[in-house]
């Protein structure tokens, strides 16, 4: 089954250039710059560090107060960018009267996918996230974990070149967590994946690149190799300082 985009070899770049977001007296993100390439990037930070605000700006849902975010030179506010974007917000709901399948077909239409392609892709993804058996049941009967898996499927519908996942493992049981990590690792081979979490183990083994945020600022960024030791210990040390 093909989960990844076909653009495996083309160079992709998501550039965040001195981006800030201010809400009245609070600066949620402060002059943050980073460049993301193909692969999985883990975004670590405590609650309130500004991870969600940064991700919403990357998705074009929030407009930065200053700075610019571009994908291959194209501002993220452009419509074309949305065609290559997949987004799983931290907190989301579902339309209770829709079935899981309807939910995916609706979002496929929102992403501009033709009906036939949407149906095939939805079936594939429902199978992948383990919801094929309950795809015709109404979403209101789903558990939290099932809704989370449906959200993940939604984000993958259009084979995104940029996949933004905000706390995607929340609500998943340990088995699902492992399956999800494998899935993300596979997608990361051909797409830019940004995955935020405050659980270090979620990104330790699959992230090629790590960003650490604290109080709206980028605390540390770079590649993390197993030879560098425990990422969790490093993370805790950095945050204590």
């Amino acid at each position, binding site marked *: 089954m093909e989960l990844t985009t076909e653009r495996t070899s083309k160079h992709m770049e998501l550039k965040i250039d001195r981006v800030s977001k201010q809400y009245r007296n609070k600066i949620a993100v402060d002059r943050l710059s980073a460049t993301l390439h193909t692969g999985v990037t883990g975004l670590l930070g405590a609650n309130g560090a500004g991870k969600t605000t940064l991700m*919403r700006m990357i*998705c*074009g*849902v929030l407009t930065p107060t200053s700075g610019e975010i571009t994908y291959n030179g194209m501002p993220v506010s452009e*419509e074309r960018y*949305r*065609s290559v*974007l997949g*987004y799983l*917000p931290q*907190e*989301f*709901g*579902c*339309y*209770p*009267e*829709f079935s899981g399948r*309807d939910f995916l*077909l*609706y*979002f496929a*239409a*929102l*992403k*501009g*996918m*033709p*009906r036939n392609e949407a149906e095939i892709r939805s079936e594939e993804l429902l199978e992948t996230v383990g919801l094929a058996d309950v795809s015709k049941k109404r979403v209101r009967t789903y558990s939290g974990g099932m809704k989370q898996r449906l*959200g993940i499927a*939604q984000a993958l519908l259009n084979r995104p070149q940029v996949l933004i996942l905000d706390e995607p493992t929340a609500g998943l049981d340990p088995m699902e967590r492992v399956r999800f990590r494998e899935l993300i690792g596979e997608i990361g081979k051909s797409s830019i994946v940004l995955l935020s979490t405050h659980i270090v183990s979620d990104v330790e083994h699959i992230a090629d690149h790590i960003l650490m945020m604290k109080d709206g600022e980028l605390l540390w960024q770079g590649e993390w190799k197993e030879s560098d030791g425990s990422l969790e210990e490093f993370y805790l040390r950095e945050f204590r300082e």
Partner: protein
Amino acid sequence: MEARVAIYVELLRFELRKIFRGRIAIPALAVSAGMLLGIALINYLVISPYDRGVYEREAALEGRALDDALLAELAAEAEEAGGLSGIGPDSPYYHLAGYISRMQGTYLTIGEGLESEAGNRELTAASVYQMREDLLEYIYDYFRLSDADKQWWKEKEALIEKPFVWRANFGAYSMKSVFGAAMNLFCMIAAVCLAGVYAGEKGYRTDSFVLSTREGKRSLWLVKFIAGEIFALAAGTLLLIAGMVPHLLFNGLHGINAPWQLIVPLCAYSYTAGQMLARYVLTYYLGCLVIGAMVMLFSVLFMNSMAAAGMICIGLVLDLFLSLPPHLGLLSQLRYLTPAQVLINSSMADPRLLRIFGLVLTPLQSARLVYLILTVAAAATVRSLYRRL
């Protein structure tokens, strides 16, 4: 292009499902339609027009001129019954008595100076038509019509043949009464079912999902707006049918050829009841569209279903109870162009005209124009507000 249309159709299908399958839509529609249907049916079942032979008695006067001879017969009947109001439904003059009473009633309620004269008037053709003329003059002054507007109405009045020829109109009169009630109920249905069209995305916490997609940011506002308006038309139709069915069932199209003056006495439209009811239907549907558009505007403005529904309910209460005197000019004129007010107008129609670029518009025409403009303006505002989300 074809592919995009297919996507819009697909989205429209889903948006319609969201509205129609919402928890409240079907029960609210069923209860409202049931109320209209039930109230009209009870009227017929308790006081069946067939049982009472209303048609036969109305038909007894069919085609007779409303002249001295007929009014003398009515006066004799009234004397026997102890006044016009004493003439019962068994009498062939029942409806005619009701018609004259309605005119006199308007006479008594609108002008203090004219009050003492009303009861003293004899029931002759001259006095009845003079009373109509006096009333129209009084109404024109009350609404502060300009000389040009008065002249316009007088020219219309001159086109109406006198003496009036009596036509049975019970059925058409009953049908007219449905519009106001259906419109008021529609406002509540729209408030409840359309308030979540935009705000529901925030309520369901799907807004981030939706706004990160291509069509979600670009064209979903329009698809949602169209879905809301389709619902408005469908709900409006259901309510209208529910209200009309008992009348059509018991009366058929009875009275459809009666002149409108026999239904709304102080009106100078030279149309038949059928022609006017067709205009009412058009106005009613445009009213549904504008109310639907307003609810959706509040929905995207507040992004809160309760607030949007609340605004419409407040508007509905104000519409029922707020009165603005005619000396407030255009403000007062526009205030009475709300769908329910325009459709409820019974014996005394608002004669204020709207003159735009040399066009003279009657209140019904003005209302339709205002509804169209407001619907388009609401759509443009929704687009602008949605794009800022």
